[in-house]
Every structure is written in C-alpha cells, then in structure tokens.
C-alpha cells in the first residue's frame, strides 16, 4: 500500500484540488456521456473537444484562465451546431472535419502568439494535455459551479431527453420542445467538455466522455444505473490516475512526474476492456415463424370472417 500512497499524498494541496476537480469532471462527463450515447451524438463531443483547443489557446493568448476559453468556445460551437441543425444523428462529415481543421490551425496561431507575448512556454502542453495539478485555487469554485449547473440542467431535462432518444416524433407529439431541450443539452455537453479539458487536456477530453459511458452500457440496461456506473467508472479512473501521477514523481525519470492525463486515458481504456470480461448475453432474435400454430400464416384468410379472438 505504501507504494500506492507515496509520502505527502494526502497533505498535498494541489493533489487535494486535483481530486476535487477530478471528481466533478468525472461525474459530469459520466452522466452527460450516457445521454450523448443515447442521442447518438458522440461526434458532437469530438467536435466540441477540437473547438475547445482553439478556445483554450485563445484564452492563453488573451491572458485569461484556459477554462473560460474552453467554455466560451464550446458554448459558441454548441449554438452554431444548433443553428446549422446538426442535432440529428450525423456521422463524421468531411465538412465538419475541414472546419475543425481550420479551428485547430487557429489554435496553433493563438499558442504561437501567446507564447511570444507572455514568453511562457508551457501552454502548448497544458491546453492539449491538461493542467489538473496546477489549477489555481480561485478557479476551483467556478469549476465546481459549472459542473453542478451542467448536472442540474441534465437532471431537469432527464425524462425529456430520454423520451426524445426513444423517438423525437413521439416527444414532439407529447408537447416536448425537442429543439430547446437539444440546445440545453448541447450547452451542458460543452461545459462537460470544458471541464474535462482542464483536467486532462482538450485533445484527450473525449476519453472521459466516451469511455465510462461505453463501459456502463455493457454492464447495465437501465438508464439510471448506466449513469451511476458511468460516473463511478470515470471517478475511479480519474482518482487512480491522480494518485499514480503523484506516485510517478518517484519513478524514472526522477524528479519529473508523468502526466495525469496519460494515466486517466489508459485506465479508462482498461475499464472498458474489463467490461468484456463479463460477456453480455445477447437476446436471441425471435424467429417469427417458429413455435405454435396451425396452418399457413397467410394474412386475411382467417380475419375476414370475424374478429380474431385472442
């Protein structure tokens, strides 16, 4: 146990902050990730992550905390996606790819200009690969609040989002504002991506939004339980990742810890692979012509004589 909890782990300030922020990130991503899968909008998460790169770089250039850049860019992109009508299920498009390429190019520019301006060099790494150990304590309340708001929005819309996932037509017929709910959900997703970007970097953030939910889907059938499992899986990966990253300070190369994001994404993948250990029983498709009954199943010959008795 000593090797897992190296000296100083529990008294370290940055570690405490990391654990707290990590928890918020994991729970938010885990829950919202399940809705993302239900709505078939995983590509939206990818796109928002790329846009977040641009936002974080821009924030660095302008001199504000990267989180606000991630968030602003994410919300703007979410609004744009809604305006263009990208809410329906859509695969990865050439058009989106090219547009995102331009966004990443802009990120390159912002990082370059920002590095010139401030003559600090670390931003290229922290924007892309996370900065969970160097979060300034005054940002923490904002991060917590953002996560709570996103969770609240999703909690309020839970039933409506589930109904829309079953059938948007049906939801509309029941009086649901499908489009409005979709926009609110996209905004919550943007917040979730921004939080994940702070923790493990914009480029790796999708791991927390895809992995734990996918793991949960293999393990449980109920939506509520899927969200719980997803949040727990994300939490386990994040906390264990933080602990290992702290411990890695003592590993080679000495005096220089390994990045938290590396551990987190590896653990997320491992968690998903572990879920294959318990094979999911696939329901055998019911053959419509096997089992009972008399005579040919030809429509009309029996029903025309009177109501069919059941």
């Amino acid at each position, binding site marked *: 146990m000593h090797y897992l909890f190296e000296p100083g782990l529990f008294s370290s300030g940055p570690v405490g902050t990391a654990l707290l922020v990590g928890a918020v990130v994991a729970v938010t991503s885990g829950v919202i990730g399940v809705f993302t899968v239900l709505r078939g909008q995983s590509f939206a998460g990818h796109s928002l992550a790329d846009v977040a790169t641009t936002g974080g770089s821009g924030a660095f250039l302008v001199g504000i905390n990267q989180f606000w850049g991630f968030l602003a860019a994410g919300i703007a992109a979410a609004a744009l996606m809604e305006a263009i009508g990208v809410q329906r299920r859509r695969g990865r498009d050439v058009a989106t790819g090219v547009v995102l390429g331009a966004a990443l190019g802009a990120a390159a520019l912002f990082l370059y200009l920002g590095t010139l301006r401030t003559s600090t060099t670390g931003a290229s790494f922290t924007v892309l690969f996370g900065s969970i150990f160097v979060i300034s304590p005054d940002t923490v309340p904002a991060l917590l609040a953002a996560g709570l708001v996103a969770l609240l929005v999703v909690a309020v819309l839970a*039933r409506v989002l589930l109904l829309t996932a079953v059938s948007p037509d*049906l939801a*509309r017929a*029941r009086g649901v504002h499908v489009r409005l709910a979709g926009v609110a959900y996209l905004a919550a997703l943007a917040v979730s991506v921004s939080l994940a970007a702070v923790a493990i970097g914009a480029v790796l953030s999708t791991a927390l939004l895809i992995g734990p939910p996918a793991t949960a889907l293999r393990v449980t059938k109920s939506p*509520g339980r899927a969200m719980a499992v997803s949040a727990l899986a994300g939490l386990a990966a994040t906390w264990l990742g933080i602990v290992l990253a702290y411990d890695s300070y003592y590993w080679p190369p000495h005096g220089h810890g390994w990045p938290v994001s590396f551990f987190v994404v590896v653990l997320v993948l491992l968690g998903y692979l572990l879920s294959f250990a318990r094979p999911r029983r696939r*329901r055998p498709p019911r053959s419509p012509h096997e089992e009972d009954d008399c005579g040919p199943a030809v429509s009309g010959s029996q*029903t025309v004589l009177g109501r069919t008795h059941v």
Partner: protein
Amino acid sequence: MSELASALLELDGVGVRLGGRQVLSDVSFSLGRGEFTGIIGQNGAGKTTLLRVILGLVEPSGGRVLLDGEPLHGKARGRIGYVPQKLVIDPDMPLRARDVVSLGLDGSRLGFSLPSRRRRELVDRTLDGVGAAGYADARVGELSGGEQQRVLIAHALIGRPRLLLLDEPLANLDLRSEQEIVAVLARLSREHQISVLLSAHDMNPLLGVMDRIVYVAGGRAATGSTDEVVTSAGLSRLYGHHVDVVRVHGRVLVVAGE
C-alpha cells in the same frame, strides 16, 4: 354508432397545404368511443400528414379538428396516445422495454422520476396487457419489430388515453406479427373502450376489425364502411383515373385499370 353520442374525434373539411402543394383537401370523418378506424392509402397519399394534423403537429390550411367537441389545443394531447412507426435504436442503448413504457406516464415532464413499487406494478400490468411481459427487461434496441410495436403501444396506453393513434404500425412486420398486433389492438379497443385510429397501406389485415375506413387518394378521402367505400366506381372517382377493386378469397386488391 349512435348519432346522439358526441364523437370523440371529428374532422370537418380539413385541408393541408405543404410546400406550396395542396396535399389534402376536404377530409371529413368522425370517430366515436371504442371505434376502430383505418386510414388507408398508398405511400405518399397523405396518411401520415393527416395523423400529424390530428396530433397538432401540422396546422390545417382549412377546416377544423375537434377532440371531444373542442378544437385542438395543448391539453388535448393527454387524451391521445401516439404510437410512432418505428424506433431507430442501437441494440446497445441502455433503455429497457419497461423504461420506455414508464416514460409514457411522465416522459414529457421536467425532472426525473424516482422508482416506486406502484409505478413498477403499473408498468408490469400494462406490458402484460399487450403481451409483452416476457421481455420487459430486455433492451428495446434488441427487440424485433413486432415486439417494439407492443412496447410502444404499452407506452401510449399507460397514460389512459381515449384515442390511440398509430402511424403505420403494420409496415415492416412479417405476416404473423401483423396479425398479432391487429389482434392486440382489437382486444384493447374492446376491453378499455379506447378508439383506435391507425394508418396502413394495405387494408387486408384490418378487414375483420375496422368499423370504418378512411380511404385517402388523390388528395381527398372517402369515409364509410369498407363495402361502401372500396368499390371500383368509388375509388376511381377518388383517384381520378380508372381502378379496379378485386375481391379474392376475402381479400381486397386495388389495381390500376387500363
């Protein structure tokens, strides 16, 4: 049906204009309690459009729709149970049949529902009523077409509607499942005195259970009993060109004439 009882649903001279085209004009029919009516027509004839007008999703360009004697407005939605045509759902989705049915109670309300024994029993009873109790805990995406239809019917039913509206429930089903669904609907209609209004492109599976047919063609509709409406002369008038109605072994075929 008695003329004195006010109709549950009444369409009077309803017309619909979509994309600059007059899709439907002067459609009139009424539906009483516990009646079973089929909207029959070819693909593209306007059946789904008609259903969407009744659901309040499409504004009619003329005429009126009355539900229980009142024009359609938001609250009417509670009285209509809508069963959409098909679910396009991944087999992986964490949504069981019972989850879908449970959403029928309050899926359009904000917030989330806490599990309770009463809710669970109600869901179980409703699923049993449509013969779907055997797969209540299966993922909806893994169910066959007929099984999904039953789950969707249960979803619509649990809210105790007065009218069940189904959009092409028999499309994409094999013959056996077709028969089963029709039988389920007929029984529900009888047992709970629920009116059933569904659309189909083939009237044959419904011949034994329909009280009334609304035949849609050429942008117009003819209403009445099957024998009244489905005649060579009548349908030719509707279509605007000659069609022959052929009855073979109790089945009805509509074929284009020369």
